[in-house]
């Protein structure tokens, strides 16, 4: 689909980049004039996806995370977050609410939140090759806009 605007970021899997990634996507999304609620949902979903890369894709080393965002027609924000880390063995299990391999520090709610806070959510992963999260969020146009 033809995009009206796009951006791409590459950064190492350092936890300090969680805040950077969600803030960058929020700034990019601002041109769609989202509500605070919509922006909150998008930032939360991005934070979950990037955290997964840091905690699960590259547990013992620093790796590269690629984040792409596009504006599609009809005010749709399209986000792809990709790593080349160790991948997910059992996708169904990983998506189960409260399931985590991350220990007591993690809640196991990441995929559940991405899925429920975004309009579309797709997860592809291959063990040893990496994981890609593809999410879309339609921004509702409000009164006063064309």
């Amino acid at each position, binding site marked *: 689909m033809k995009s009206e605007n796009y951006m791409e970021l590459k950064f190492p899997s350092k*936890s300090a980049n969680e805040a950077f990634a969600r803030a960058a996507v929020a700034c990019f999304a601002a041109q769609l004039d989202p509500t605070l609620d919509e922006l*909150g949902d998008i930032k*939360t979903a991005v934070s979950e996806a990037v955290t997964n890369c*840091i905690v699960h894709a590259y547990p013992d080393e620093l790796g590269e995370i690629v984040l792409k965002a596009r504006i599609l027609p009809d005010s749709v924000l399209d986000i792809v977050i990709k790593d080349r880390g160790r991948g997910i063995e059992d996708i169904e299990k990983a998506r189960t609410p409260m399931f985590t391999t991350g220990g007591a520090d993690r809640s196991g709610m990441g995929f559940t*939140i991405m899925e*429920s806070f975004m309009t579309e959510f797709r997860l592809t992963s291959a063990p040893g090759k990496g994981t890609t999260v593809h999410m879309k969020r339609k921004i509702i146009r409000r009164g006063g806009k064309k």
Partner: protein
Amino acid sequence: MKLTSYVQERQLTVALAGEIDHHCAREMMEAISEKIDLYLPLRCILDFRDVRFMDSSGIAVVLHTLRRMNTLQGKLLLQNIPAQPYKVLRAAGIEKITEIKEECPQ
């Protein structure tokens, strides 16, 4: 991570602030646990008034604190939760396992 707390009659109030994510969650859990171990409160209140953003790492912080309070047979209460953190907490059903006071979704 910023965290301030005060104790009154075995009630510990911890005011969380800023953005709660995986980057700061462990430090935050440990800081809260330290306060609990120090004051052995009967009731712990986590105040979210100044939390600007929270992802699911905040759920783990709440669950961790809840477990600490359960072992002390004390209560945990959450208060002043802004809309964004509240939505994240609700996604995990936190309102069913802890008491929430003065929530303030916009």
